[in-house]
């Protein structure tokens, strides 16, 4: 492999979404030569699709907001399974990260006094989401992209080369991480355009590859979400945590079939939209769980008053955390009160004037008009749950985003812990910036400590990586060949049916058997046609290896956790168990198969515990854990 294209960098960032770009900006600002690698064109990462907003307790709309309130909401949303240190760093640093975007040129919607406007969202006590209409992700990614350009312009002015300090490798897929004695040494990947392989050496790699939703049939996620970073980390020896927690967003489109799963932003409900069954009844009042009774209105009157007088009324139950709303919709449909296409109605037309809808939700209006022939200013939308986000990911040190593998960092959706068992809307975009920055800084610190002594790349490992990526071209015996498109469709069916929104032990056992069978057949995955030049069939064959590994993690961990919590609901274990709150499930690879192990959750710092009332904590924590707050400080 001596003749393969090669590059040397200080830091390699895999992923050009919010997390990856923020990490790269940070690494470059520490004077490190940085490469950003991404599967799509620059500016097309999943982050571009985010709609509703970015959560940060700036207090611009309600001055009662502060980091403590945001921290509390985040922990409640995640049913206290969150890594509390991550939730603390996130809540305290998110405002600075948002303000910083303005210095890069971002233009958020404004309040009357010229500050950044903030909107209501599920699970957030105050209006907290900075936004630009319903295209916030586009603003975020474009702003970061333009900041990258501005750093490149500075390098050009100084060195005559735009790419001297920061280079983007677009349409480039990483297939393997390279290690040297357990430490990160670089990566191998290929240009999608030509299928040619590249070896990149670097002592530090930041994973910022996003999620895994493409393993499910009904999903809001794009082709990129094949869990590559999760799988790369597993294969490098890192541990994934919380993989049983997958978020099903309550409102995806259900009709027509070709758009099933495409997201309908939560801002529709944040701005006043309500959910109704086929008969027009507003059903969410029937689904307020015990732990949330104190903060959610139990009558439509009170709920409606809340929009204008939030201090004296409780919130509408449509704004419960996503897991609650998704389960409620699922149940309405199951009990026969759904719409003709198997969803429920989301009604904003009767709640806001057409003008307001056009101003606040322009891209939703466009989406329904163009794709479903529905005018949301006068008609109801049909919606149902869709696989949206994975809470599980690489276990990291909260402060530095370092994984257990030296030199390997992870930030954004690919990292685990921050959101516990369920993520609140808007908390991802802020997560990307807070921990993207920390990962870039963490990598810089790690490299400084190496003091110039860099790991070596083994030629044999590069050759192995290339050969294994080319394996689908070698399966030439047409008997028994597997087609990547059909195998992918089967995998999606299994995950959707058996490891979906409502789970059951027996079904998950069956899912694991079917996954094992699919995995065997995957060894015979072939490239049905064409050569290495931009060949989607080959690309999918490679992505499938990752989807399979990650699906096994999800199913195995979900089978092990015998309780229901957040994004993990079991029919056979319907209640939440405080004993399980203190336990995290880790997934690791042992001799090629997934092993699930239990790990104690580090106890929450006392001052953070005291931000909650003992009564509230009593709903989640065991008596032993509560001892620290039972005694007055």
């Amino acid at each position, binding site marked *: 492999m001596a003749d393969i294209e090669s590059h040397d960098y200080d830091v390699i960032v895999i992923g050009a979404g919010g997390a990856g770009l923020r990490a790269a900006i940070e690494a470059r600002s520490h004077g490190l030569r940085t490469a950003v690698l991404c599967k*799509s*064109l620059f*500016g*097309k990462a*999943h982050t*571009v*699709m985010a709609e509703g907003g970015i959560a940060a307790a700036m207090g611009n709309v309600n001055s009662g907001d502060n980091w403590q309130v945001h921290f509390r909401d985040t922990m409640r949303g995640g049913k206290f399974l969150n890594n509390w240190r991550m939730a603390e760093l996130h809540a305290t640093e998110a405002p*600075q990260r948002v*303000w910083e975007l*303005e*210095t*890069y*040129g971002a*233009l958020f919607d*404004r309040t009357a*006094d*010229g*500050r950044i406007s903030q909107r209501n969202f599920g699970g957030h006590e105050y209006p907290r989401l900075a936004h*630009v209409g319903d*295209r916030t*992700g*586009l603003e975020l990614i474009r702003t970061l992209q*333009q*900041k990258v*350009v*501005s750093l*490149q*312009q500075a390098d050009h002015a100084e060195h005559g080369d735009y790419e001297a300090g920061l280079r983007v490798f*677009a349409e480039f897929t990483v297939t393997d991480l390279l290690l040297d004695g357990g430490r990160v040494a670089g990566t191998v990947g290929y240009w999608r*355009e030509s299928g040619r392989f590249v070896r990149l050496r670097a002592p530090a790699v930041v994973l910022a590859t996003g999620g895994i939703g493409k393993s499910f049939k009904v999903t809001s996620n*794009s*082709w990129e979400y094949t869990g590559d970073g999760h799988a790369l980390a597993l294969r490098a020896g890192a541990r994934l945590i919380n993989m049983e927690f997958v978020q099903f967003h309550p409102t995806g489109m259900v009709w*027509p*079939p*070709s*758009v099933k799963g*495409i997201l309908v932003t939560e801002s529709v409900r944040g701005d006043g939209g309500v959910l109704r069954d086929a008969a027009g009844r507003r059903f969410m009042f029937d689904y307020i769980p015990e732990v949330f009774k104190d903060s959610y209105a139990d009558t439509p009157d009170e709920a409606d008053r809340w929009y204008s007088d939030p201090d004296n009324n409780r919130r509408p139950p449509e704004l419960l955390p996503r897991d609650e709303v998704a389960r409620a919709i699922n149940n309405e449909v199951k009990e026969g009160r759904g719409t*003709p*296409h*198997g969803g429920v109605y989301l009604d904003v037309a009767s709640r806001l004037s057409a003008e307001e809808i056009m101003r606040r939700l322009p*891209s939703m209006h*466009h*989406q329904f008009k*163009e*794709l479903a022939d529905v005018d949301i200013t006068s008609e109801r939308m049909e919606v149902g749950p869709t696989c949206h986000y994975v809470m599980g990911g690489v276990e990291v040190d909260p402060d530095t985003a370092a994984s257990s593998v030296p030199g390997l960092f992870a930030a954004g959706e690919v990292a685990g812990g921050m959101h516990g068992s369920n993520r609140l809307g808007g908390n991802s975009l802020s997560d990307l910036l807070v921990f993207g920055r920390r990962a870039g800084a963490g990598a810089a610190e790690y490299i400084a400590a190496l003091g110039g002594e860099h790991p070596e790349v083994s030629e044999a490992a590069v050759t192995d990586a290339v050969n294994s990526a080319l394996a689908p071209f070698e399966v030439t015996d047409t008997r028994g060949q597997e*087609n*990547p*498109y059909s195998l992918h*469709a089967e995998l999606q069916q299994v995950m959707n049916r058996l490891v979906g929104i409502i789970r059951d032990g027996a079904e998950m056992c069956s899912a694991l058997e079917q996954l094992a069978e699919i995995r065997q057949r995957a060894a015979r995955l072939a*490239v*049905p*046609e*064409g*050569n290495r*030049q*931009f*060949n*989607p*069939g*080959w690309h999918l064959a490679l992505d499938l290896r990752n989807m399979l590994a990650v699906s096994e993690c999800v199913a195995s961990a979900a089978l092990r956790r015998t309780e229901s919590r957040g994004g993990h609901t079991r029919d056979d274990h319907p209640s939440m168990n405080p004993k399980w709150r203190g336990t995290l499930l880790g997934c690791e690879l042992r001799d090629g198969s997934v092993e699930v192990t239990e790990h104690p959750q580090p106890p929450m710092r006392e001052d953070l515990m005291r931000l909650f009332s003992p009564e509230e904590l009593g709903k989640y924590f065991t008596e032993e854990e509560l001892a620290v707050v039972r005694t007055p400080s």
Partner: protein
Amino acid sequence: MEGTVEMGYRARLRVWRGDADSGELRDYEVDAEEGEVVLDLLHRLQATQCPDLAVRWNCKAGKCGSCSAEVNGRPRLTCMTRMSLFGEEETITVTPMRTFPVIKDLVCDVSYNYVKAREVPAFSPPGGLEPGEYRMHQRDVERSQEFRKCIECFLCQDTCHVIRDHSENKESFSGPRFLMRVAELEMHPLDSHEEKGGNRPEEARGDHGLGFCNITKCCTEVCPEHIGITDNALIPLKERLADQRYDPLGRLFRRKNR
């Protein structure tokens, strides 16, 4: 699914297949179902007949600008082009964007755009304001916000006659997308490029070829975000340029009072 009437038919697609060296239009018949868009059919072609058919896409909802191509000769997002626009008997021709070199099938080399993006001087933050101290009014940010709706599908670039069949002009012309980027920054209430010696309208003329644009509005017509590229970005930029050439001192004064 209850209550659903399946209304499938065999659609006729003519798709450009090939690479930088050679290629041809090939005819296919593929199933179409109710509500589908052109991209759905391209995906079905991949899954059933041509597994190596190269197409770009991400969001499938008109938000990322990846799936651009020409459908019956018109620049469009394939994910937002409903099959119901066409008759069931009609043959629908899908070809790659003509202005950019083909890589394979419907995927073309759009690096021209990224090169041009890099040549527009970035936002220059105002001196004396810390993060968190920026104050801007909604009415003052609305214009630039309109331009920031751009999803970089490059359809406007594809359609603009200045470069569509004149690649020799690519060197000196950045295209509507990036002239609009200049306008966006020029109208940003807090950009301090000028205080640092820059002059965005002048740069639009000198570095990005504003003068090539003869305001035909073809770019505006194809923009899937319905951005008023010509009326709101290009013409005002030309006007500011004319103003400041006529009255160079007035400009600074006007900017301050905007």
